C-alpha cells in the first residue's frame, strides 16, 4: 500500500499542499502572531501612543482573583454544555445511524443541520424571545397548568446553557453519527449471537468504537463554549459575566487590546493544557477497545 514517493510525486504533493499552507499562514498564524505581539505591549500601538514591551498584561491575570474566578466559571460552563451535548447527541446519532433508513433519515439530518444555516445571533435572539417573561415558553406552560406561570428562565445561567447546547449540539451528533455508521452491523449481530446482552454490547463494542467521533465532537463543543461571549451576554443578564465577555470588554468597551490579547492567550493555554491532559485518557480508552 505505502509505496515510496518518487521525486515527481513529492513535487506534486508540495504543489497540492501549498494553498492549504498559505491559507493556514494567512488565517491562523498571522492573526495569532499579531495578537501575541499585542499581548506583550504596554499600550495599543496607535498614533501618539507611547508603548513598550512588558509582561504586565499577563501579571494582571494573577493580580486579582476576578479573572481566575471567571475562567473557572467558563470552564464549568464548557463542561456542563459538553456533557449535555454528549448525553443528548449520542442517542440522536444512534437513532440516525442504526434505526432510521432512507427518506426519514434525510429529513432528520436536514432538521439537525438547519440551525447551522441561520445566523447564530438570530438563534440566540430567538431563544431570548422564547425564554423571556410572557414569552412563548411561559405561554406554553400556562396551557398545561392553571394560573399565571412565570418560569423566568431568561437572564439565568440556565438560559445560557440552553442557548449554547442548542448552538453546538449538531457538532456532537454529526461526528458521532459518522463513527456509529462505520460500525459494521454484523459485529453487533456476532456479539449478540455469542450471548452478549444489550448493555454489554453498548459498553464493550459500540461505545469504544464510537469514542473517536464522540471525543472529536466534545472537543469541537468544549473549546468554543469556554470562550463564548455572545450567548452569555444576551441570555445571561446579570449572571452573564464569563471569561469570554471580559475579553470582549477589553476589545470593545475598554479598549485595552493588550490585556484582551493576553487574556485570550491564557485561555488558549489553559484549553490546550486540558486537551493534552485528556488525550492519553482517550487513547487508552480506545486502546482498551482494540
Amino acid at each position, binding site marked *: 500500500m505505502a509505496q515510496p514517493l518518487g521525486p515527481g510525486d513529492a513535487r506534486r504533493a508540495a504543489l497540492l499542499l501549498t494553498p492549504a499552507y498559505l491559507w493556514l499562514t494567512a488565517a491562523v498564524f498571522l492573526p495569532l502572531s499579531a495578537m501575541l505581539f499585542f499581548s506583550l505591549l504596554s499600550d495599543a500601538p496607535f498614533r501618539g501612543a507611547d508603548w513598550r514591551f512588558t509582561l504586565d498584561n499577563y501579571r494582571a491575570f494573577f493580580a486579582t482573583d476576578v479573572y481566575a474566578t471567571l475562567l473557572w466559571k467558563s470552564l464549568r460552563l464548557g463542561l456542563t454544555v459538553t456533557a449535555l451535548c454528549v448525553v443528548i447527541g449520542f442517542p440522536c446519532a444512534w437513532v440516525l445511524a442504526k434505526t432510521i433508513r432512507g427518506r426519514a433519515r434525510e429529513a432528520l439530518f436536514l432538521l439537525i443541520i438547519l440551525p447551522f444555516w441561520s445566523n447564530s445571533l438570530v438563534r440566540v435572539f430567538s431563544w431570548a424571545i422564547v425564554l*423571556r417573561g410572557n414569552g412563548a415558553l411561559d405561554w406554553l406552560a400556562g396551557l398545561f397548568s392553571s394560573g399565571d406561570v412565570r418560569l423566568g428562565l431568561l437572564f439565568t445561567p440556565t438560559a445560557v446553557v440552553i442557548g449554547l447546547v442548542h448552538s453546538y449540539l449538531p457538532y456532537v451528533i454529526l461526528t458521532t453519527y459518522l463513527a456509529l455508521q462505520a460500525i459494521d452491523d454484523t459485529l453487533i449481530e456476532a456479539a449478540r449471537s455469542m450471548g452478549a446482552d444489550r448493555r454489554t454490547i453498548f459498553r464493550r463494542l459500540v461505545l469504544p468504537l464510537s469514542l473517536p467521533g464522540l471525543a472529536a465532537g466534545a472537543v469541537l463543543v468544549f473549546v468554543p463554549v469556554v470562550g463564548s461571549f455572545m450567548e452569555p451576554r444576551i441570555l445571561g443578564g446579570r449572571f452573564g459575566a464569563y471569561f469570554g465577555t471580559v475579553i470582549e470588554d477589553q476589545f470593545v468597551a475598554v479598549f485595552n487590546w493588550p490585556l484582551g490579547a493576553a487574556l485570550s492567550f491564557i485561555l488558549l493555554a489553559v484549553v490546550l493544557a486540558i486537551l493534552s491532559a485528556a488525550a492519553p485518557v482517550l487513547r487508552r480508552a480506545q486502546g482498551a477497545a482494540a
Partner: protein
Amino acid sequence: MTARAPRTAALAAAAILAGSAAHADQIRVLNWQGYGTDLDWAVAAFAEATGHRVVHDYFNSEQEMLTKLRTNPGAYDVVMINAAFTPQAREEGLIAPVDVSRIANFADIAPEFAGNPALAADGEIWGVPWTWGLTSFAINTAAFDAPPESIRVLWDPAHEGRVSIRDDALEAVQIAALATGQDINAIADLAAVEAKLAALMPNVRAFWSSENDWNQFMAAGEFDVATYWSGSAARSQAMGLPVEFVVPEEGAIGWLDGLSIPATAPNVEAAHAFIDWMIDPDFHIRWDEEGAPASANAAAAEALPEDAFNRAVLGDPEVVARVQFQAPVDDATRAAYLALWQRLKAAQ
C-alpha cells in the same frame, strides 16, 4: 402646479450648484448612531443651505471614539465629545480650537456651558456646548401608582428582579455615589459604593447596553425601573412606551456633550458651518418633537413649548440645583472603577 414644478426644480438645482460651486465639500462626522447629527431632515436641509454633504461614522464608547481619532487622522471634520473626555482629547492633540467668531449661534449658548472649564481652556474653546441632559432612572408607569421620589427605589425589594442598570463602570459607580450621598466627582468612600452596588445586584434582572436594548426590555415588560438618560427617555416616550423619567431627591448625574473639530480635519470651514447649524434653535425645536436632550443654547431652550420636558423639568432651577455635573475622570480612577465593577459582575 405642473407649470411651476420644473421652475422650482431648476431653482433648487441652481441653488445646489451654486452651493457646491462655492464649497463642494463633504464633511465626515463622528458621533453615536441616532444622536441628532445624522437625522435625515437635518442633514438634507444643511446640504440644501450650504452645499456640504454630511457623511457619518459611529462609535459605541468614548474609548472607541478616541481610538478612531488617533488611528484615522484626517478622516473626520466634526466629532461629538462628552465634555468629561474633551480635556483628554485636547491633551493628546486630537482636537483643534474652534473659531467661535465663525459660529453665529455661539453668542446664545448659556454662559455656564460656554465657560465650562472642560471645554474652555487656555483662552480657547475646544468644544462647542451642544446638548446636555441627566443620567438618572426611568420607571415603567404601569408598575407604579405614583412616581418614586428617591433613588432608593432601585434597592426596593418590591422590585426584585425588575431593575436594570447600564453595563458601564463609571455610570454604576456614580449612581451608587448618589445613593450613598457622595460627590460623584470626588468619591471619598469607594467601599460604601461597592457595598451599595453589591446590595443592588439581587434586584438587577439584566444590564442594558444601548438605547435599543432598553426600549426592547421595557416594551417586553422585563423592567419596572431602570437607569436611563433624559434625552433617551424623551425618545422612548415619543415612541409610545409607558415610561417616565425621574429626578430623585438625591440628585442626578449631569452631562454635557460638545461638538469639536479634530486637529487634522480637512474641511474646517464646513465643520464650523455644521456646528453652527447643530446649535441653531430651529434645529433643536424640531429635534425636541422627536425626543432630544436639552440644548445648551439658551435661545433654543426658551423657544420650546412650555410643557416640553426639556423646558418644564430641566428648565426648573430647583431641579438643576440637584444636578451634579460630571467632571473629567483620570485614568487611575477609571481603572479603579472598572476593577470594582468587574469584581461585582464576576461574583454573580
